[in-house]
């Protein structure tokens, strides 16, 4: 690694709260590498999070950081970004954060297309509260609120984001550091709302309750339960009979960005008011 990413870490706030073997640390390392690669000005980066294990990420990051309420990170981030569009606003959410309690904010952020980078740390379970079922828990998987296996279909967040209109949508796993870094850089550079669904591992709850094994085995589980989208049958993670979840960039399209439209509206209104006087 060429970048000394420790300059992005609040060393005074270590140790972090994550369990040994948690995938979140790997995701954060890829994020920091991507921020370093892109040469973002440290003071101009804002990381906004919600609640849950992923929500604890900003504590250890030496940027402007905002740990908000459960599910609302995107709404807070919209305010930060619109008040100062020079800021790079990166939003970190858990899967429950983004798709259960924050589902409404998520779909509207996709639709509105304000330039925010949304990273979903998707471990398919509620970790911080002790392993309950999430909207992303694969059908049949055990959690503390579905001991006999989940009877609900799981949310495919890529398809949700695509359907709601997000311009950049990708999925990767915390197994694949190189792919994560690449997708994070593309997402941060995208001139509009960008989503990366990062499938990650929770050895403490998801792993133990589903007999996947040790953290090392969970990494293999991530590797073996996903595949590049072009070799998967169909573009869906949880289609009946589908045994592997597709990864890749599912959309990269530029359309009118909300912040830019907002600026143009203000410029036009200021000009008109000036003429009127």
């Amino acid at each position, binding site marked *: 690694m060429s970048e000394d990413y420790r300059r992005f870490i*609040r060393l005074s*706030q270590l140790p972090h709260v994550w369990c040994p073997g948690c995938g979140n640390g790997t995701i954060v390392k890829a994020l920091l590498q991507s921020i370093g690669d892109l040469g973002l000005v*440290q*003071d*101009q980066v*804002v990381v*906004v999070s919600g609640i849950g294990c992923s929500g604890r990420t*900003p*504590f250890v990051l*030496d*940027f*402007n*950081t*905002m*740990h*908000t*309420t459960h599910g*609302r990170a995107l*709404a*807070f*981030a*919209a*305010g*930060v*970004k*619109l*008040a*100062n569009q*020079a*800021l790079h606003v990166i939003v970190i959410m858990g899967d429950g954060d983004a798709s259960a309690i924050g589902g*409404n*904010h998520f779909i*509207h952020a996709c639709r509105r297309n304000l330039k925010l980078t949304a990273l979903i740390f998707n471990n398919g379970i509620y970790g911080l509260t002790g392993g309950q079922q999430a909207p992303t828990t694969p059908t049949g998987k055990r959690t503390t609120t579905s001991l006999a296996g989940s009877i609900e279909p799981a949310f495919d967040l890529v398809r949700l984001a695509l359907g709601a209109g997000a311009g950049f949508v990708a999925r990767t796993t915390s197994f694949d550091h190189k792919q994560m870094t690449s997708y994070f850089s593309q997402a941060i550079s995208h001139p509009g709302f960008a989503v990366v669904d990062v499938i990650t591992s929770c050895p403490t709850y998801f792993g133990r309750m589903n007999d996947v094994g040790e953290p090392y085995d969970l990494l293999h589980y991530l590797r073996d339960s996903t595949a590049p989208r072009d070799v998967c049958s169909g573009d869906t993670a949880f289609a009946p009979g589908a045994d592997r979840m597709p990864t890749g960039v599912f959309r990269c399209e530029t359309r009118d960005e909300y912040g830019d439209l*907002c600026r143009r*509206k*203000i410029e*036009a*209104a*200021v000009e*008109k*008011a000036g003429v009127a006087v």
Partner: protein
Amino acid sequence: MKAQRLIQGNEACALGALYAGCNFYAGYPITPSSEVMEILAQEMPSRGGVFIQMEDEIASISAIIGASWGGAKVLTATSGPGFSLMQEGIGYAAITETPCVIVNCQRWGPSTGQPTKGAQGDVMQAIWGTHGDHPVIVLTASDVRDTFDMTVRAFNLAEAYRVPVILLMDEVLAHMRENIRWPAPGEIEVVERARPSEPRGFKPFDGEAFLPFGAGARFHVTGLAHGPEGFAVADEAAARELKRMVGKVQNRVEELACFTRYRLDDADLAIVSYGITSRPAQSAVDLLRDKGVKAGLLNLKTLWPFPDHLVREAAANADLMLVPELNMGQLVREVARAAGGRCEVRPLSRIDGHLLTPGQIADAAVTPVREGATL
């Protein structure tokens, strides 16, 4: 700009916000507050400000808090159902000491209730609505010009003390039109949030100085219990920080108390009212005086922190204190506590969606209390 203008309460609120320098509004439509957002949608862009219609009230308050940390002066307006949803964000604004103004045009009843009927039923919710002990300032207004002034004051207090300020309006005030004298630029003081002398080493929760993101420092903001640097604390440190936050409001009761008195000096009968009800209450004072009853009015514009000293003083000189409200008796409990037995305190409720009339208030002041109608 004309010196006199015929405008409605919601318009006075929106224009008062602009006078105060508000440059970010996020909101969600709801009766009877929607004109505030409609006017700001129209007026904000030409002044360089941002207007955004969010997907719900939770998003609206979250967005204004985010924008405040982005450096903006921020407002949202709503009514009961939306105000309930905003409680989560109000708590976050309180613990993160975020300057922001929330306007609640009160309407009748719980849930959907009667959206087009005025009420004063959200007083206790405004003070105590979000969970946990927390600082908040609650203001109200009783006419259109007062709405303009109190909106500016709400911003001034939010900015000066880094605290969420709630302005309680009501449906009648929101939609009532009055001809008001327009304040000239600079006529009303506008307060800006204090900046630290040096951005480096800025501690985000170490006093009233405020620095937005991207202004030369890097720091952490969280809804968890935190110390001056923004990082989590527990035990005695958490208690100390909570006490400091609440103290910002509770140690300034006299300074924050905004009120008017009307013929109160020699009053045996003190009417204590607030908001729209202060209008018929003032007329009731005149009616009673005409009948030879020495009545007076204490009109409270700051409902929280509660100005005990004003009530205590009025109670010491009065035999009876009447508290008319468009609810089943909310602020009267604070009044009775502050009066501390110095005089009789009598509630007067009206909850049919209509205003109390001067005659009803005057009658209640001189009619012996029915059994069971006291506190």
